[in-house]
């Protein structure tokens, strides 16, 4: 029995005002519990696709729904309610640098906190306890009082994961979450994303450059090239000819010699 559909993208296109077609008629379906990797060269439209799903970017054409609810037409309070269920992790971490780690994690609860309280950073005790639990999950339980910009990149990304977790999301969008980290640190961050997927059943859509990471963490992958969906399959199905069709004939792959 296949799990229900988490995200349905139908014939999605995005044309930027300067005429660049970042997404061109993309359709895909993600089932609950999947860890979907999105591959593609720089500029192929990965970020645009992810940002359309939580409407940080408004698509030009097409339709997206998450958990059966329409995203593309949602406005105001409906849109905010949808976003609440979707955590997002960014390549540049995007923490509020001058806030403490704890306040950063608490900001994941903004969608369910009254405006006045949140403007004064007065979160209920229950949320504070939950934030602490989220921090402990990512191994940052003792850093709650540090300022966010005092942390290393890997630590900041873990805090960002805790912030997403604080949303109690059903879906996580991760836009190249480890691309600005040292290769040695990448697994320490990816493992936390994987844990949310495996242990909490949170659906993950994660854009990645790194094919080894894709093979290790994803349950399925799709690839974009110049805004078009050009490949789709299990990680192990991404063989040399497929990769060439994604990255071009000139590309070189580390495992090429071995295969």
């Amino acid at each position: 029995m296949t799990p229900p559909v988490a995200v349905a993208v139908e014939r999605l296109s995005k044309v930027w005002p300067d005429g660049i077609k970042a997404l061109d008629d993309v359709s895909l379906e993600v089932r609950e519990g999947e860890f979907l990797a999105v591959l593609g060269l720089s500029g192929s439209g990965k970020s645009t696709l992810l940002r359309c799903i939580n409407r940080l970017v408004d698509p030009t054409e097409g339709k997206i729904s998450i958990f059966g609810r329409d995203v593309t037409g949602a406005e105001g309070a409906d849109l905010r309610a949808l976003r609440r269920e979707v955590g997002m992790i960014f390549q540049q971490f995007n923490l509020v640098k001058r806030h403490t780690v704890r306040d950063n994690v608490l900001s994941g609860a903004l969608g369910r906190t009254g405006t006045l309280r949140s403007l004064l950073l007065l979160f209920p005790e229950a949320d504070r306890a939950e934030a602490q639990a989220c921090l402990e999950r990512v191994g940052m339980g003792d850093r709650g009082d540090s300022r966010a910009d005092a942390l290393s990149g890997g630590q900041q990304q873990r805090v960002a994961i805790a912030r997403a977790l604080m949303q109690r999301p059903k879906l996580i969008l991760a836009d190249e979450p480890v691309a600005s980290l040292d290769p040695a640190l990448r697994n320490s961050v990816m493992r936390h994303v994987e844990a949310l997927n495996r242990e909490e059943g949170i659906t993950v859509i994660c854009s990645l450059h790194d094919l080894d990471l894709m093979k290790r963490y994803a349950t399925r992958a799709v690839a974009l090239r110049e805004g078009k969906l050009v490949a789709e399959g299990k990680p192990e199905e991404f063989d040399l000819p497929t990769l060439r069709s994604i990255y071009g004939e000139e590309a070189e792959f580390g495992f090429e010699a071995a295969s």
Partner: protein
Amino acid sequence: MRRAAPPPPGPGARLLALVVDAALLATFLLMGELLVRALVFPMQEGTLRTAQEILEKLHYAVLGGAGLLLALAWNGAAGLVGGTPGQAFAGALPQEPAERPWDRTLRGWFTLLFVELTFFTGWLVTEVDLGTFFTNFEKASGVLRGLLHPSGAVLFEGLILLAQTLFLAFMATAFSIPIAFVLSFAAARNLTRESTAAKVVYTALRTLMNLTRAVEPLVWALVFISWVGIGPFAGVLALWVHSVASLVKLYSESIESIDRGPMDAIKATGAGTLQVLRYGVVPQVIPPFLSFTIYRWDINVRMSTIIGFVGGGGIGYILKPRVDLGEWGEVGTLVLLIAVAVWVMDLVSARIRERIV
């Protein structure tokens, strides 16, 4: 990336080029006439005429028309003799086969001559008189002697009014902070892109603030003196209006330069507009806001002395009558007090701003 040839200049740019050229050429001809009149017939009718008299005699209509005709001719013949300065200004230069050095173009020579002519015309119009400047010094020495021998008579009163000046500047700044803070979000382009209503508010607010800032605080002081009467409160209001306008500009420019990332991240949590501003924008702009505010207080201290001259309270208020009466010793004391206060403010504000950023 795809790169197309630049589009040919539209009618708007061509019209702008023509208007600029007509203005430049007419000004050029008028400056020429002024020089000829001043240098070739200086002694006509017995006296050397003043600049104003000459300016009143120039043939504005004729030379204005001539400028327009020349501009039309040059714009028409731009293909032959090279682009016009107006075309360069409007970004509507014709395609030239090769980039030529400026001294090989008509435009370059015209610009050079124009600048030189402006200098000589300026000399005449502002009635520069080096002879008097170098020979008539002793008339000013009384003033300087007074300034260098400050009298103690106004020291106490001066100090008290100096304190009033500092408070005046402080209150003007304090009143302007909350208003400028709120308005600056609506005057920041990056926050007002999403809806048409927001864009309208942005444009209206920017225009209003630019107009407000264009009016000198001295003029605002006159307005408020007739409104609330002579005294420091009028000065506070005058500086307040000007401070709001300039802080909105400075604040909104720092909002425009924030990192968008945290804003996106907060938006992605499902936060509302106010929450996005509070978490995604405000923490990033607090240091520049503080710095600009202190800078503004510093400027207000300087301005409040001038505002006192017209009745806006503070130390400038007692300075004016002493200047009129020629009591240079007392003027010296007051000027010294102002100089010290401005100097100290300058140091303190620079130091605090260094620490913040």
